[in-house]
C-alpha cells in the first residue's frame, strides 16, 4: 500500500482499507485494455410466465377484435408469414437484433409444432430483451451517460435492473416518482428520474405527464393550453405534488464544511483541489422530501383564476382531487429573520406531507385509465409498429383509437396482468395478427391503421448496430465493456467513491484527492501489465496449439480423412474464437448499443441511423440519409466484418464444405433465409468467375439492401 500512496499534506500515510478495496475493485477490471467482462448485468430475467393457454386466449381475443375492425372497413388480413420471416422479425422485435446463423438454422430446422411459441418465450427471457427494452426506455426517459452534475450510471443501472427483474410497470414508475436518497449510494438510481431534470421541476412534471399519461401539459406551463382543456393553474397544481423536493443531499461523510474551507483557503495544490471537487460533486445529489403538496404560481401569472405568487395546493388534473392536506407551520420570529431557504421554493414553513407518494399512487392506479391505456398502446406499437392511438402521447378527451374495442381490451388486459409487460407482449407476439406479413405505410394513414399485419419498419439505429455485431462476434448479448467515463472519480466509479469516502475524515479525503492522475494511471497500468503478461502467456500457448492443429489438419488432408479434418477444423476455429475474445483487441466498441455510452457519440453508426440524442422524449428517428448509405457501402461492414477472417460471419462461411453451402450461409447469416434458386445460381456464377473475393461482394450486396434494413 505504501507504494501506491504518497505522503499526505497532513502527514503520515493513509491507511484506509476501503481505498484498497475500491482499488482492487477497479484495477481488476483492466480499464486500459477495455477488456471485456462477462455481462453480469445481462442475465435475462427469469420470470414465471403464466400458463400458455391463458396467454393464447388473450392472443385469440386480439385477433378477433382486429378481424372485427377489418370487417368494418371491408379489408382482408395479410397472409401469415413463413418461419424465415418470423425468426428474423421476432428476434429483431424482442431481442433487438437479427438471429445469428446458428440461431436461425436451429429454429428453421426444428420440427416441433409449437416452435414459434417456444422461441417467443425464450427471447422474452433473454439478455437481448433487456438490452432492447433498455434502448426503448432510454429514448423515452432521455437517459444519458452524463447528466448535468452526476454520471448516468446509477439511473442506467436502475432501469436495466428493473427490466431484468421484470418489475411491473406501475411499480417501476412509482419507484421513480417516489424515489429518494443519495444518488451515489447503490440501489438509489431511481432518483436519476428527478436529477435528469435538475433545476427544472416544472419541466419534470410536464415530462412525467407526457410520458406516463400521454397528455401534453407543457403548453400550460406559460399560459392556458390553446388546444386542450388544461389551464396554467391545473399545471401548477400538478407541480405542487412534487413541491418542496430537494435535489441536494448530504454527502456520506460529515466534514463537508471543513473540506469546503480547506478548498477555499487555497491551502491545497491545484490538482488536489480539482480532484477533490470532481470527486465530491456527485456525492451530494439525490432527492429528499416527500413533497409538501404546495407550489407557487409564477411571479408573472396573468390568468384570471389566480394571483401572481399565490400558493396553490396540489390537485389531480383529471378529477381535481386534493390527495393530501398541506400544512404550513407558523414560523416564529427567528424563522422569519433567517434567510429564506431557497430549497423549499419560497414557501417557508411548508411541511413535507407525502404528496409524492399520493400522486404516484394516483398516477399509476388501475383507476387512472390514461395510465394503462398509454402503456398498453405503447407496447402494442412496439410490436406492431403503429399505435392504436397515434401519436402515442397527445391524448385528449376527444381521442378515438383506430380500433376502440381493441384499445379498451388491451388496456384492461394491462391492468388484469398487473402491468407485467412481458406477459402482455407475449400475448401480442403470439397473436396471428403479429405473425402476418407487413403492411406499408403508404396504404393507410397511421392514425387509421387497420392492422392487416404489422407495419413495415426500418431497423432502429440500435437494431442495425446490434445486428452488425451479431455478424461480427459470437454471443454478442454476453459482452459488455467497462465504461471509462464511469471511473472518473480518482479511478473509481460513483458507487465506489461513495463507499470509499463514507465516514472518512477530511484528511483522509484530501489524501485520496491527492493522488494524481499519473499515480492512478501508474497503479492501473501495473495491474494492466500483469493482466497482459498473463494474456500473453495464454496466447503463446494458444499459438502452439494452433500450429499443432494445423499440422494435424494437413496430415488428415493428405490422408483424405475428411471426417477428422472437419473435426480438427472446428477445433481450430474454436481456438481462434476463444483467444480473440480474450485479447480484446479491436473489440472495445464491439458491444451492443445498450452497453455503449448513452447516447453514442455523434457520427457513430448508431447515431447516423437515428439513435436519439436523449435531449427530448422519444427523439430517435428512422429517416433515410446519404450518410447512412455511405456507411453501409464503404464503412464498417466492408472494413471490419467482411475483410476480417475472424468475424463470426466469415467463420460461418469458412465452415462450409461447398460454394453452394457458403452462399447459403451468407444468406442465412444476414437475411436469415435461404437464397432462392435463382439467387443461388447467380452467386455460383459470380464465384466461378471472380473466385474468393465474391464472398465480400455477396455480403456487401445483402447488407446494402432494403431487405436487410427493414423488418418485413
Amino acid at each position, binding site marked *: 500500500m505504501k507504494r501506491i500512496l504518497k505522503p499526505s499534506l497532513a502527514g503520515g500515510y493513509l491507511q484506509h482499507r476501503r481505498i484498497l478495496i475500491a482499488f482492487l475493485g477497479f484495477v481488476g477490471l483492466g480499464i486500459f485494455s477495455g477488456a471485456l467482462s462477462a455481462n453480469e448485468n445481462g442475465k435475462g430475467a427469469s420470470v414465471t410466465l403464466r400458463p400458455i393457454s391463458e396467454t393464447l386466449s388473450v392472443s385469440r381475443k386480439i385477433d378477433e377484435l382486429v378481424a372485427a375492425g377489418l370487417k368494418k372497413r371491408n379489408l382482408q388480413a395479410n397472409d401469415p408469414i413463413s418461419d424465415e420471416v418470423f425468426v428474423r422479425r421476432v428476434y429483431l422485435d424482442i431481442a433487438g437484433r437479427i438471429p445469428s446463423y446458428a440461431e436461425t438454422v436451429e429454429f428453421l430446422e426444428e420440427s416441433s409444432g409449437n416452435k414459434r411459441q417456444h422461441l417467443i418465450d425464450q427471447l422474452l427471457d433473454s439478455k437481448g430483451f433487456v438490452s432492447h427494452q433498455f434502448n426503448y426506455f432510454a429514448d423515452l426517459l432521455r437517459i444519458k451517460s452524463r447528466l448535468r452534475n452526476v454520471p448516468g450510471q446509477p439511473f442506467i443501472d436502475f432501469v436495466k435492473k428493473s427490466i431484468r427483474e421484470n418489475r411491473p410497470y406501475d411499480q417501476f414508475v412509482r419507484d421513480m416518482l417516489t424515489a429518494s436518497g443519495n444518488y451515489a449510494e447503490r440501489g438509489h438510481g431511481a432518483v436519476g428520474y428527478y436529477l435528469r431534470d435538475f433545476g427544472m421541476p*416544472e419541466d419534470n412534471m410536464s415530462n412525467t405527464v407526457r410520458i406516463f399519461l400521454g397528455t401534453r401539459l407543457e403548453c400550460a406551463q406559460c399560459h392556458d393550453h390553446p388546444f386542450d382543456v388544461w389551464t396554467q393553474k391545473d399545471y401548477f397544481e400538478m407541480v405542487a405534488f412534487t413541491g418542496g423536493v430537494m435535489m441536494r443531499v448530504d454527502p456520506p461523510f460529515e466534514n463537508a464544511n471543513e473540506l469546503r474551507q480547506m478548498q477555499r483557503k487555497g491551502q491545497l495544490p491545484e490538482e488536489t483541489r480539482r480532484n477533490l471537487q470532481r470527486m465530491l460533486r456527485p456525492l451530494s445529489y439525490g432527492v429528499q422530501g416527500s413533497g409538501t403538496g404546495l407550489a407557487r404560481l409564477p411571479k408573472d401569472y396573468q390568468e384570471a383564476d389566480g394571483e401572481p405568487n399565490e400558493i396553490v395546493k396540489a390537485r389531480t388534473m383529471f378529477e381535481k382531487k386534493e390527495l393530501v392536506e398541506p400544512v404550513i407551520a407558523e414560523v416564529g420570529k427567528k424563522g422569519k429573520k433567517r434567510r429564506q431557504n431557497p430549497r423549499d421554493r419560497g414557501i417557508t414553513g411548508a411541511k413535507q406531507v407525502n404528496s409524492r407518494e399520493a400522486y404516484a399512487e394516483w398516477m399509476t392506479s388501475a383507476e387512472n385509465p390514461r395510465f394503462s391505456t398509454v402503456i398498453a398502446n405503447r407496447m402494442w406499437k412496439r410490436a406492431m409498429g403503429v399505435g392504436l392511438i397515434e401519436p402515442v402521447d397527445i391524448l385528449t378527451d376527444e381521442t378515438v383509437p383506430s380500433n376502440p374495442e381493441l384499445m379498451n381490451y388491451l388496456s384492461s388486459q394491462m391492468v388484469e396482468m398487473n402491468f407485467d409487460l412481458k406477459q402482455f407482449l407475449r400475448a401480442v407476439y403470439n397473436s396471428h395478427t403479429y405473425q402476418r406479413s407487413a403492411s*406499408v405505410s403508404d396504404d393507410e394513414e397511421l392514425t387509421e391503421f387497420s392492422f392487416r399485419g404489422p407495419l413495415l419498419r426500418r431497423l432502429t439505429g440500435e437494431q442495425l448496430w446490434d445486428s452488425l455485431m451479431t455478424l461480427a462476434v459470437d454471443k454478442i448479448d454476453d459482452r459488455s465493456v467497462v465504461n471509462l467515463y464511469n471511473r472518473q472519480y480518482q479511478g473509481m466509479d460513483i458507487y465506489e467513491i461513495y463507499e470509499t469516502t463514507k465516514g472518512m475524515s477530511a484528511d483522509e479525503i484530501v489524501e485520496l484527492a491527492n493522488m494524481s492522475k499519473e499515480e492512478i494511471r501508474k497503479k492501473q497500468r501495473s495491474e494492466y501489465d500483469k493482466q497482459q503478461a498473463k494474456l500473453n502467456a495464454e496466447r503463446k500457448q494458444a499459438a502452439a496449439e494452433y500450429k499443432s492443429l494445423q499440422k494435424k489438419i494437413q496430415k488428415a488432408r493428405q490422408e483424405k480423412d475428411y471426417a477428422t479434418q472437419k473435426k480438427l477444423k472446428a477445433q481450430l476455429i474454436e481456438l481462434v474464437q476463444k483467444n480473440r475474445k480474450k485479447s480484446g483487441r479491436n473489440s472495445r466498441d464491439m458491444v451492443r448499443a445498450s452497453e455503449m455510452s448513452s447516447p453514442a457519440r455523434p457520427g457513430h453508426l448508431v447515431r447516423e441511423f437515428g439513435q436519439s440524442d436523449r435531449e427530448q422524449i422519444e427523439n430517435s428517428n428512422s429517416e433515410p440519409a446519404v450518410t447512412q448509405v455511405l456507411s453501409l457501402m464503404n464503412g464498417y461492414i466492408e472494413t471490419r466484418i467482411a475483410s476480417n477472417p475472424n468475424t463470426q460471419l466469415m467463420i460461418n462461411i469458412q465452415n462450409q464444405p461447398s460454394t453452394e453451402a457458403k452462399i447459403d450461409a451468407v444468406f442465412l447469416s444476414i437475411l436469415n433465409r435461404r437464397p432462392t434458386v435463382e439467387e443461388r445460381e447467380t452467386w455460383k456464377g459470380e464465384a466461378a468467375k471472380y473466385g474468393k473475393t465474391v464472398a465480400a461482394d455477396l455480403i456487401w450486396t445483402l447488407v446494402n439492401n432494403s431487405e436487410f434494413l427493414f423488418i418485413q
Partner: protein
Amino acid sequence: MSRKQGTLDARSRRDFVTGAARSFLGLGTLAFVPGSILADSKSAPSKGGTAKRVIYLYMSGGMTHLDTFDTKPGAETQGPCESIKTSAPGVQISEYFPQMAKQMHHVAVINSLSSTQGAHQQGRYFMHTSYFMRGTIKHPDMGAWSSYFKGKGDTKLPGNVKIGGNSSGLGGGFLESKYAALPIGDPEAGLQNSTLPSGVDEDRFARRMKRAREMNQKFLARYDDKQVRAYSGMYDEAVKVMKSDDLKAFDLSSEKTAVREKYGMDRFGQACLLARRLVESGVSFVEIDNGGWDTHVDNFGRLETKGAVLDQAMAALVSELQERDMLKDTLVVLATEFGRTPQIVTERQNGRNHYPKAFSGLLIGGGIQGGVKYGKTDKEGREVEENLVEVPDFNATIGYALGLPLEKDVFSPSRRPFRVAHKGKPITSLFG
C-alpha cells in the same frame, strides 16, 4: 406507378397524384395543379433578396434574449449582464459578444420575435417549419424547402446539410427524402465513408451495385413503401457524392491552423468553418445546431462559456464571408426556439425559464441591411412593443431573401396544401 423509383421525383409524383385525383374526382384543374403558372399568377411575384445560400445557426434550448441581443441596461430584469457599444451606431449588445460587436454593421437584429410554443420540441418544430407540430403530418423545414425549390445547383454535394448532434430529424417533412438534410455529426470527422474501401475498384463496385439493385427491385415489388423507395434514391445520391470533386470541402484539415483557431477549436466553431467551406463549394443551405442554451440554472455563468463560443465562431464566419465578398449573397441566420424569462430565478443560481412571448434573432448578409435593430420590447424585455415578428414572418423573410415562392401552394401526398413559411409576411423593409 412508383415502381420505377428514382425516375419520378416529388413533383412529378405529386402531379401524377393530383392528376389522378382530378380525373377520378372530376375536380377542376384550377384547384389542383401546384406549381403551374395559374398558381403563380395568384400571388404577387416575390422579388426577394439577393441570397443564394443560407447558413442557419440554431441555438438549441432557447437563447436568452436579454443577455444577448436585446439588452436592457439598468432594468432589474437585466441582472449582472452589461451592454457594450458596437460598430453600428445605436446598436448595443451584451458584453458576452465583444467580437460580434465589431461586426454589427452587417447585422439586422430582430428583437420582436414572438412564439406561442413554450416547450422545446414544439418550439423547435415551429421555428424550423412555421407550422405547429401535429400528429398527422410532418412539415418540411427551411432547409428542405430551399432544396426543393432551388435544387442544388451545379454541385454534386447535397444541397442541404445539417451539422451537429441533434437527432430530431433531417427536416424533409412530407417532401421526398432527397430534399432532407445530409447530417454531419462531427464537423472534424467530416463526411465519412465517402471513398471506396481498398480492394474495391470501380468495376467491382458497379457489379455490386447492379446485384443490389436487382434485389432491391424485388423487395420494392413486395413492399411499395415511401421509405423503401427513399433508400433506393439514397444510393443514387450517395454514388453522386462519392464521385464529387467537391468532397474536399468536408476536410477541415486542409485549412491553416490559424484559420481553424480563429473560429474556435470547439465543435461549434469548427462547424461554422465547415459551413463556410460547404457554401463555397455550392451547398445552398447549411444548418448548425448549437445546443445547451436551456439555462434554467445559472444563466449568467453558462452564458460566459456559451457566449464566448458563439461570439468567436459567428464573428469569424461573418468576417470571412465578408473578406470573400460572399456576404452579399449569403444569408447568415441566428435563431432559437424561444427567449428566456426576464424574471431571474434567484433560487436556481440566477436561472431563467422558457419565454416564448418575446425573443431575438439575427439576420446577416444576403441583401439584408446591416447595422439596424428591428422591433422592440418594453424596457424590461417582457412584451413586444413594436413591429411584432411572428415565427412564420421570420421564416418568410429568410424565404424572401432566397427568392422562394412564398405564396405557392405545395401539396402533401395526402393532398393538403402547404406553403413555405405558412403565409408569414416577410419583413421587406430590411432589404436595402
